């Protein structure tokens, strides 16, 4: 209901195949156009990096994809189903990692995960929570309240929360921010293994080189537009000027 159903774009024939497909997506926040007529599709099983300067609308885009924010206009389909109608069913197939940890800071990491797991309706949540925390190197701190965690530990706990429901689609907003080098490597390995399992991963990142190394596709969101690669034309604006060299380079090295 929240998203307008009046997009001029027909649903493309390949929509069911795509993990994410977006047509004519607009978002206006406080009378300011943040996303303007975005059209793109992310194939299933791809690792997709969204690049863009601060304020380019990357986080907004991810929030809309996660169903946390209604778009002003346009359509979003996840796994071929419209996000607006099936939000509740789709939510248990999506993992979302935001800027903030999205955890209750008075509760311990384990309590948080058990709580969110129960909300997801998972079976054997305790075991799943402990496994995940162990995997992310938080096993010895899992009974401490989250508010005592350092930034890096908080980020790892947040990653555990995002992966709790074993999502087919992981949306990660700046997942590497605040992680030290070893943790970042662990996360990279984790993302690669998730990708190897055939999951779709969409993440935003400032680090162009890292994004390129990780991603199977790179896209950049600028001020109200997608910057386009691969069709011979590159539409940019001043916010994205820093990025275009890297992107052009990517295209050349890929071909």
């Amino acid at each position, binding site marked *: 209901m929240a998203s307008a159903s009046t997009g001029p774009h027909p649903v493309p024939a390949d929509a069911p195949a795509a993990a994410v497909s977006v047509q004519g997506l607009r978002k206006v926040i406080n009378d300011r156009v943040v996303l303007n007529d975005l059209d793109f599709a992310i194939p299933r099983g791809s690792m997709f990096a969204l690049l863009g300067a601060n304020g380019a609308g990357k986080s907004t885009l991810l929030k809309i994809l996660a169903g946390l924010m209604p778009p002003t206009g346009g359509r979003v389909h996840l796994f071929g189903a419209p996000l607006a109608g099936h939000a509740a069913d789709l939510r248990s197939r999506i993992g979302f990692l935001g800027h903030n940890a999205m955890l209750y800071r008075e509760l311990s990491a384990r309590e948080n995960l058990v709580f969110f797991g129960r909300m997801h309706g998972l079976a054997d949540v305790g075991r799943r929570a402990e496994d995940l925390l162990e995997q992310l190197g938080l096993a010895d701190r899992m009974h401490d309240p989250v508010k005592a965690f350092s930034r890096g530990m908080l980020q790892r706990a947040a990653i555990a929360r995002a992966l709790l429901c074993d999502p087919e689609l992981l949306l990660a907003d700046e997942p590497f921010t605040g992680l030290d080098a070893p943790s970042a490597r662990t996360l990279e390995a984790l993302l690669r293994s998730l990708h190897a399992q055939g999951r779709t991963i969409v993440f935003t990142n400032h680090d162009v080189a890292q994004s390129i190394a990780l991603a*199977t596709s790179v896209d950049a969101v600028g001020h109200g537009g997608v910057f386009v690669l691969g069709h011979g034309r590159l539409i940019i604006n001043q916010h994205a000027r820093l990025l275009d060299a890297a992107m052009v380079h990517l295209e050349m090295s890929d071909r």
Partner: protein
Amino acid sequence: MNRTPTLTGHGPWNARWGTVGMQRLSAHLVRAYWLVTAALFVAVILMLVLYTPVDRGMGPVQKIFYLHLPVAISGFLAAFVVFIASVGYLWSRSMWWDDLAAAAGKVAVLYCAVILLTGMFWGRSAWGVWWTWSPRLTFSLVLFLLYAVYVLIRPTIDSAERRAVICAVYGIIAFLDVPLVYLSVRLIPDIHPSSISLEPAMRLSLLAWFPPVVMLMAGMIGTRYALNRRLRSAEAGRFSEAPSAGAAIRVSAAGGHP
């Protein structure tokens, strides 16, 4: 592809007339509407002075009633418009509903203020007090407060969307409150039982007052609405220079990395 922002999507009353001719016609219609409203007001005031009989019991002050009751009903209608527009906004998330609700909210406050003031003059003349916590007065005071808060709270919310949502929820509950307030004030003991019996000439005068007062209310809401639409599109226009990269294309650099 240069689509109009949904933010300023067209409402039904200010749909962009296709031609200048249509625009002129609508301007003429609006002018005629206001002229008719003003003429009707002059007519009913003359009628009040020349035709309407003076109440034998209460004297001339009873004539306040001919303004008081139509204004009360119109104020109530304006509140109903706020309610409808609020439901409409939550249902469709189109900003023009919010503009309509804001317009009607302001008019509702104005009308409630007039109900209170005329009621107070009447009370002062008839019972010698400006204010008493009688059910009727309490009811109109609560109504006034409900919509005064509605109008006051709007500008304090920065985000246009949040403002629209919060005010829509408020507008819905406020209107649903009205019958509850009406019933609850009847628990207050009423020291002024006022049953008014109307002669046919009085009833005719009362009926004559309804069209101008209701038309004025509708005209005010329409004008305020048009003004709100204008302000909003002007604000949205500030940012319309953002690039409209409508021709965004799917990314095709896939699977190329080691």
